[in-house]
């Protein structure tokens, strides 16, 4: 559409311009056959030369350059691929080693813990036994003391009370009667003295 418009403009311009009419006598120079042979000759010569130089000298070089670059890039890609595979393998190895060592350390830890636990148990058992023995010893001692204590207390009570009475009354009082009373009281309240 735009082209059409422009063409119309051109024709209008050609039509109305006097100068154009003045110079227009030859029409289109393209249709003047004066230099046709010359143009054909030079075109053949120049284009032929261009074609020969391009096809024989320049294009093979460009093609070789492109080919070389392509193969180089391909090689590089292959090398990179190989290295990537290698590194992947190494990474896997590394992972395996890490996994193995982790397992080992876990085992070691477990073993040590069990051993330690066993040791602790044994030690605790022996300690408990010792403690039990000590406790038993102490208990027997306490029992003996418990058994012997009331007699001594009674004796002290009798002596003390006879002393007190002698001081209070001034006469000797028969020890047997006092001991009878103490015995009687002890039998009544004996349990209370030791709290059991």
């Amino acid at each position, binding site marked *: 559409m735009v*082209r059409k418009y*422009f*063409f119309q*403009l*051109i024709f209008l*311009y*050609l039509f109305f*311009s006097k*100068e*154009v009419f003045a*110079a*227009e006598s*030859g*029409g*289109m*120079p*393209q*249709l*003047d056959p*004066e*230099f*046709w*042979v*010359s*143009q*054909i*000759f*030079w*075109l*053949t010569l*120049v*284009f032929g*030369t*261009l*074609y020969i*130089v*391009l*096809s024989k*000298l*320049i*294009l093979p*070089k*460009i*093609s*070789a*350059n*492109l080919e*070389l*670059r392509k193969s*180089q890039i391909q090689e590089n890609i292959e090398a990179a691929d190989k290295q990537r595979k290698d590194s992947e393998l190494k990474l896997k190895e590394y992972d395996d080693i890490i996994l193995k060592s982790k397992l080992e350390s876990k085992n070691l830890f477990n073993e040590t813990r069990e051993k330690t636990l066993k040791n602790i148990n044994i030690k605790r058992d022996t300690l408990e036994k010792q403690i039990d023995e000590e406790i038993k010893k102490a208990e027997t001692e306490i029992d003996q003391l418990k058994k012997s204590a009331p007699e001594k207390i009674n004796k002290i009570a009798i002596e003390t009370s006879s002393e007190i009475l002698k001081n209070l009354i001034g006469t000797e009082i028969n020890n047997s009667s006092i001991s009878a009373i103490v015995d009687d009281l002890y039998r009544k309240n004996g349990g209370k003295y030791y709290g059991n």
Partner: protein
Amino acid sequence: MAANPMTQFEVYRIGPEIKIGAFDISFTNASLFMVVSSLAILLIFNLGAKKNSMLPNKIQLLAELSYTFVSKMISDTAGSKAKPYFAFIFSLFMFVLFCNMFGMIPYTFTVTSHIIVTFVLAAFIFIGVTIIGFIKHGFGYLKLFVPSGVPVVLLPLIVIIEIISYLSRPISLSVRLFANMMAGHTMMKVFGGFVISLGIVGGWLPLTFSVALTGLEILVAFLQAYVFAILTCIYLNDALNLHH
């Protein structure tokens, strides 16, 4: 300053008149721009092909991109069989492109705006393609004019149309390029003339148009070179891979 927009297409002799027999083969401005375009092509691509670095510099990149561009164009349209004709199509594309582009520089001559130049190129392509077709397929190449799957009644008509369309290929190919270049350059000249005649007051509008047209014409210069090359590929495809 010629006001006639057609004077830019005039061919004139540079240097002495050279004659071979009755033929005048003098060196003209048209010849000059053919030589200049070719030298520019050779210079650029020679520099681009010279040293091979892994990371190409700008000119090498340009050369290699052009190479792959044309190579892809050929393999896309004509297949792998067209590989031997790569150098020809590459030269053709570059020659037309550089001639078009040199024509875009003010006060230069556009080689491709002359029907005789484009017609010689197109005729050479036409004859070459026809010869290739007959060499590859023998008289079987004539099957090109008989499309498959056409009713027998219509066949004579179709064959005539096909033959006419085949024979008009060199004309359409050459006229397309020539007319595009001539029309574009004439238009630019006309708008340039408007700028002068309308002066400082009204000249701005045609000047704007002129700037826009320059961009458009650069696009057309590339596009027409591309079309010329790709049509050559298509014709070559017909000759190499007979589809019909």
